[in-house]
């Protein structure tokens, strides 16, 4: 038999679980709990895999993705590749509550967030900038390019496409690990 209520989340992000549970215990809804829990990780930058100042892209920029799905209404609110706004899960809730859409992306998600009252700011951190500088100093290794020149295993970009070479595809997927994941 099951027991309600319940909070369960990926990884050992216990403060997120606790804050979601506290929200439920004080009468909050399941959606409230999701926002509370995920916001906790955004603030705490859990393992640098959640929130501002983590996982820099090839340009050194951190962007955020978040999504909420509500069981009773089957509605979704989500943002992807959102730039320069820290509160990803809260913006996703605004998409859920204040639009009839499901997913907003990139700079348009940022514009939506600002319209909804969120602050636009630099969301890099000392950690993300150092990680990016170290990556550039290491000839941009690892990276996710294939079938381009110059050889992406030894060089930074910019790259140009070359004839497909199946034996060189998907060789770097093991760079996703405990500290680097979606």
């Amino acid at each position, binding site marked *: 038999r099951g027991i309600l209520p319940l909070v369960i989340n990926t990884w050992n992000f216990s403060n997120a679980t606790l804050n979601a549970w506290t929200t439920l215990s004080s009468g909050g809804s399941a959606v409230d709990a999701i926002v509370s829990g*995920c916001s906790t990780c955004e603030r705490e930058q859990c393992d640098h895999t959640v929130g501002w100042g983590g*996982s820099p892209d090839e340009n050194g920029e951190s962007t955020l993705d978040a999504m909420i799905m509500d069981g009773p209404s089957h509605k979704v609110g989500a943002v*992807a590749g959102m730039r320069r706004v820290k509160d990803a899960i809260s913006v996703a809730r605004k998409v859920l509550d204040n639009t009839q859409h499901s997913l907003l*992306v990139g700079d348009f998600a940022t514009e939506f967030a600002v319209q909804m009252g969120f602050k636009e700011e630099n969301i890099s951190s000392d950690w993300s900038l150092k990680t990016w500088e170290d990556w550039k100093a290491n000839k941009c290794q690892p990276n996710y390019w294939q079938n381009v020149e110059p050889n992406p295993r030894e060089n930074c970009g910019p790259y140009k496409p070359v004839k497909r070479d199946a034996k060189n595809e998907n060789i770097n997927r093991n760079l996703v690990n405990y500290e680097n994941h979606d």
Partner: protein
Amino acid sequence: TIGMVAIDRNGSLAVGTSTNGLRHKIPGRVGDSPIPGSGAYVDQDVGGAAATGDGDIIMRFLPSYQAVENMRQGMSPKTAANEAIARIVKKYPKAMAAIVAADNAGRYGAACINIEGGFPYSVVNPKLGNVTAERVDCL
């Protein structure tokens, strides 16, 4: 990434994810987290699930949707999670992926592939009393 399933005292379910994606991604790349059915999925009549790992691979299998559909067919959350992850293993045996799943009665389970030492997750309900760190061995 954090992926979460919550069930409130009224029995209403919700799921969510938040992430900054992979390090050194090509600008514009988005993983599975914000995609319904992939990063997370919920059906009030059945349960919810949330995934984590290599989003470029995960999004090709919609494992959260699959886990919920497995529970709809009568599987336990644990079995449903295992089966959803097994589909990824079959095509991408080296990919890293994990999933937590819960049915609308509050039963829960998890599964993973290619996480050294197993997949840690965090859970709380009235029986547990406190937030509890649990771990599942990978397939």
